């Protein structure tokens, strides 16, 4: 499975990268802002996008909304990671059409399991 990671925190980006690799998948790109993520999504063949919500340029939620409105990316698998544990955030993520939500801090094990689950569906 080819994975895109977008998070404005470099250390966390690396942590997610490790989790993806532990799950046995390939990280195509790990970027720090919404626009770069959008560019990668349009340039590369991606199976799963792991997106942070608060990123400069475009938030993770805006990115999902844009993907769901796009013919090519409509069916793309998206996992949102956020530091905001409010119920309202979960609702917004769900409404935007993401496939899953993980709140920070997360256990690496939990993230690995989540990615494996998606991979099985794909």
């Amino acid at each position, binding site marked *: 499975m080819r994975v895109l990671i977008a998070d404005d*925190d470099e*250390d*966390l980006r690396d*942590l997610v990268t*490790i989790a993806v690799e532990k799950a046995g998948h390939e990280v195509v790109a790990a970027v720090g802002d919404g626009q770069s993520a959008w560019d990668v999504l349009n340039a590369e063949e991606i199976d799963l996008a792991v997106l942070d919500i*608060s990123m400069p340029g475009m938030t993770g939620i805006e990115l999902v909304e844009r993907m769901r409105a796009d013919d090519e990316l409509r069916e793309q698998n998206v996992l949102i990671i956020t*530091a*905001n*544990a409010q*119920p309202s955030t979960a609702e917004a993520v769900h409404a935007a059409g993401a496939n899953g939500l993980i709140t*920070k*801090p*997360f*256990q*690496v*094990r939990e993230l690995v399991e989540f990615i494996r689950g998606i991979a099985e569906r794909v």
Partner: protein
Amino acid sequence: MSASGIAVRRSTGAFGSWSPLLKQLATVIAFLLANAVVLSPVVVQADVAAVVTADLLVLAATGFAAVLPGTRLPAGWELAIPIVSFVAVALLRIGTGGQASPFGALLVLPLVWIASEPGFRNVVIAAAGVIVTTSLPFVLGVSDIASAADAVRLVFTPVILTIAAVLINQIARVVNRRLAQLQESNAERDALVESLEQANREAGKRERQTVRANRLLDEVWTAIKGHAIIGTDVTGLITVWNPGAESLLGYSSKQAIGRMRITDLHRGEEIREESRLSGGQAASERVSAEAVFDGLVETASNGLRDVRDWTYRRRDGTEFPAQVSIAQRLDERSEPAGYIFVATDETSAREIERLKDEFAGLISHELRTPLSSILGYVELLRDDEDEPLSRMQAKYLGVVDRNARRLLRLVGDLLFTAQVDSGRFSVETAPTSLRGVLRASLETARPHAEATGVILRSELGDEDVTISVDATRLGQAVDNILSNAVKFTPRGGTVGLELDLTGDEVRIVVADTGFGIAEDELHRLAERFFRATTATQNAVQGVGLGLTITKAIVTAHGGRIDISSVLGEGTSMAIVLPR
């Protein structure tokens, strides 16, 4: 009435307040003239002894008149003077020819004096004086009744003089009465003038007080710049407009008073919406200004307190959030006279609220992200099967992990209290098995209890209870009081968790054998950042948010927390929920 009243009572006779000496003056002058006549070449046969005696009597009477006002003798004694004068006149007549004496007319002087005194008794005295004086020359044999004319004169003179005495007495009575009336009306007038002056002084005082009160009101009125105070009549027409309203809303009082309605400042649809939500009568689609105004003052017109947020429109068309307090005004007969609106600009308060929310969100994000990295990388190190950690490394990383989680909980607690503060905290209830919630909390508390040597006991009963609660939040509340109990209990102590069902209540009781909490601190436990003295003394970890959060959760469920504690023996805390 004071001074003039006494004057009325003292005044005797037609001469009023003339002194006896002044009254006597006429007699003195008459006697001086008589003596002058006796000593003059005009031939008058005189008995010197009688004339001198008469003079001495007049002198004595005059002396008495002079000293009488200074003595304490009763007023009646004054009549002694004219009576003595009668005697003196009688002697003078006897000494100057008796019946033929030219000084008979002097009789009139004491007669007038005595007859002018009030009371018929004095007429009698005067008549007696006249009779004695006129008849004395015949009685003493100085004169003889020589002719019929003499006899007639002897009778006629006293009769005429007595009639004169009666007339004088009557005239004096009338004059006296008039005088008394005059004095009385003078006194009344004086009293009236006095009371008028008094009233005038009072009015002046009241006016000064009113001026002072008005000035104070004016100053307060002008000083209120941050609040718009607007008064209306019962129909909503503006009748009062303070300087605060001028500066907040941009209309001068001239533009507002009598020309604008309070509803001109409101959004009509906002009032209709509010009215619809509260099921008010103005919910209909009537759009008249009256209907909108009735909707606005519906609560206040029922005499209830009405403080709500509205949107107000300024003269330039811009709008701002305003907190408006509406109160009904009553007139002096307690009939509705209108309404008072006090509006406060909430713009900066809203901005502060927004910044607070934003800050809480920022803190949440900025602290959780690095904590995620710390916890994630620690997990990677501890789970690395290729390069296992040494025992010491594993222990140290355990400390890092534990403290990172502590920080994380603190961030969560701070965010939670911020939510409660801003009123954004609510519970989402669903039928929940209480035993499930309590078991999960026991499992959460167990590792810490085991590590600190505290025995954890539970008595959950055989019967499960399912009530409608927010399982996550209630679990958090039970976690908090359980972990508090474990933290407050020294090694070897016990913490028990019990589920009691009593009537229409469910009690989740956590009892420990710990340090206890001082009685005067019990009521402060739910205060944010408050820490019991026993907590700081025994170095119990925490920041003082646990019970604040627990109370907020329990309150949101319609429940309460019961606490009892004995220092040195332990504490019992119960979450009481309605069934």
